[in-house]
């Protein structure tokens, strides 16, 4: 499905340019080096690149073609960034050339009103005639960090990972990428669907369902035209991997903005939400939740049972965690007498440790105490997952504590979610956790929401 679109061997950039402020320049740079601004991520495209522009001879050391028909070799994908009015002609040329995939970045179609809609309909007619897959128009393009292909004019490339992001807003994608670089959220692909003239979010969710590089699928959707198609795709895909949706245009005002944004009507959002949940999808409430959820689901296994234990060196951490667990339908287990005996037998527990769940091992706990507590609890059959909540005192050793959490997760393969509360002096520990696929949050509520997902809850606000 869409094999030659997302894994092309050759790409023509129609509207390629040397002018630094143009989209055609951005696309060329992104293909040639993997980014416009260097974030440390992004790789050059290894296939053939054919710039197309009738007014220029050479672009960035490459020979420039007057039109696609002049290119002798086979072209898998066309990236189009020319004024809207000539796009129908360009698509016709692509059809004649035998190009089967086009990304139309150009704006000025259905999103601007009836005149633009006419142009868009023309494109659809040509694309159907020549059997061309169309992404867009009015989109940012797509990026596949996992395979090193950046067919967009995004600012830069995000780190490569296993989360696909399909978005109806290109601008949102741009900011998410910048944020992802800083916070190290990573992606298998980012696809900006724009006006979805021919292919819509459902088609790309379906593709991501088949994509071996993708483990979790996220999508930002404002409106769709075919609700039943979305339901069918989500039902099928969620048998293999999670699908998380953030819906824009949920209120009357939001819907108004969405209507003018991508020229598609936002469906009744309550029905939308019901449809996604009924199909097995997950609803996120914020952009941050969308990617936090994706990270957790891509890094941690699901809970075998809804039966959780908390290990903490802070009373407050435990109390807050218990409060949120109730709100987000997580069950804190009661510790059995045998477990307490095992804890006592380690001779590492403080004389005043809580002896109940949340297990408060007291402020002065050292890494060996954390280790004794975590490894004892995680090995109990009746405990399916663990929160480690660490506050930072003078004797606390965050990095060593983080290593304890990492070792337990690796050895026992049960979900471990951490809250290493703090800032500057916890950052090294947080890196250790993140590098080893353990989600860490600075706030207990976020951690509980994440664990709730692993318990199979699908609506978490």
């Amino acid at each position, binding site marked *: 499905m869409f094999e030659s679109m997302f894994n092309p061997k050759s790409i023509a950039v129609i509207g390629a340019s040397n002018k630094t402020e143009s989209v055609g320049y951005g696309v060329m740079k992104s293909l040639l080096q993997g980014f416009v601004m260097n974030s440390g991520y992004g790789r050059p495209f290894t296939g053939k690149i054919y710039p197309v522009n009738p007014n220029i001879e050479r672009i960035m050391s490459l020979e420039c073609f007057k039109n696609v028909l002049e290119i002798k070799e086979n072209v898998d994908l066309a990236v189009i960034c020319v004024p809207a009015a000539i796009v129908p002609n360009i698509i016709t040329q692509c059809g004649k050339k035998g190009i089967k995939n086009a990304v139309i970045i150009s704006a000025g179609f259905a999103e601007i009103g009836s005149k633009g809609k006419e142009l868009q309909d023309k494109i659809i007619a040509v694309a159907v005639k020549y059997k061309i897959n169309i992404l867009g128009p009015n989109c940012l393009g797509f990026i596949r960090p996992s395979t090193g292909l950046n067919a967009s004019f995004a600012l830069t490339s995000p780190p490569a990972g296993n989360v696909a992001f399909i978005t109806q807003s290109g601008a949102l994608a741009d900011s998410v990428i910048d944020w992802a670089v800083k916070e190290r959220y990573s992606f298998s692909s980012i696809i900006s669907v724009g006006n979805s003239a021919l292919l819509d979010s459902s088609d790309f969710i379906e593709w991501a369902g088949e994509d071996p590089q993708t483990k979790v699928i996220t999508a930002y959707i404002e409106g769709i035209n075919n*609700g039943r198609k979305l339901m069918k795709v989500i039902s099928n895909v969620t048998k293999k991997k999670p699908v998380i949706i953030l819906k824009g245009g949920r209120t009357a005002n939001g819907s108004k903005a969405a209507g003018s944004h991508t020229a598609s009507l936002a469906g009744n959002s309550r029905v939308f939400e019901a*449809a996604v949940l009924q199909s097995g999808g997950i609803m996120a409430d914020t952009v941050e939740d969308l990617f936090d959820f994706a990270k957790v689901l891509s890094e941690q296994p699901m809970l075998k049972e809804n039966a959780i234990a908390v290990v903490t060196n802070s009373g407050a951490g435990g109390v807050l965690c218990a409060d949120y667990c109730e709100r987000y339908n997580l069950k804190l287990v009661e510790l059995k007498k045998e477990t307490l005996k095992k804890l006592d037998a380690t001779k590492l527990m403080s004389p005043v440790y809580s002896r109940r769940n949340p297990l408060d091992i007291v402020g002065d706990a050292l890494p060996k105490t954390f280790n004794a507590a975590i490894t004892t609890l995680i090995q109990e059959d009746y405990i399916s997952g663990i929160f480690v909540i660490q506050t930072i005192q003078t004797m606390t050793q965050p990095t060593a504590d983080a290593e304890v959490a990492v070792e337990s997760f690796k050895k026992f393969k049960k979900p471990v979610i951490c809250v290493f509360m703090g800032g500057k002096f916890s950052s090294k520990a947080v890196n250790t956790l993140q590098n080893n696929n353990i989600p860490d949050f600075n706030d207990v509520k976020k951690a509980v929401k994440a664990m709730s997902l692993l318990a199979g809850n699908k609506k978490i606000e």
Partner: protein
Amino acid sequence: MDFNKTEDLLTKHGFPLIQSARGCNLKSLTKDIERKNLKPPFFLKGYGREILHKTELGLVQQVQTMEELEKKLNLMRKNKKVETFIAQEKKEGIELMVGALNDSIFGRSVLFGLGGISVELYHDVSIGIAPLNQEIVKKMVFETKAGAFFNGFRGIKLEYSKIEELLLKTENAFDFLNFKTLDFNPVIFGKDGPAIVDFRVV
């Protein structure tokens, strides 16, 4: 479609409409009450195609006797938009709502939640996309706060199988009624099951 025809269709298809009599004036209403052998106390309601919220206009009144019914009906007649009067048997129970919607994006959907004026206040509503099945209905009911009444809440335990039956039946309404939205609100759910007290078809 007019009220009477809709009512007949719903009754024919086994929807539990509350026992009621109707008429466009006191005489025809009284005649219908006698024919159906109904006894006060009643809820007396004034209906009109242009009237959306009856309570605020004084068009929902409790009457204990036939004399009181005459008095209240004469008051309601002052509102020229009132076309039909209905006398309904009073029923004790929890006010719920059941609805159906032909959504422009997702198509046939069924709604369930707390009913009466609480609908607008709490928005305690869940939605199931057709075709429904027992599993979807169960999720719908227990996702709402109203679902608590079917688990047992403050000494009230409503019979779950009856709301399940009504929700599954509501999906069938698409087959014999033509509508964008269909409201059963309130559905008063008592010991003997649900009774549709009011319905609206748009």
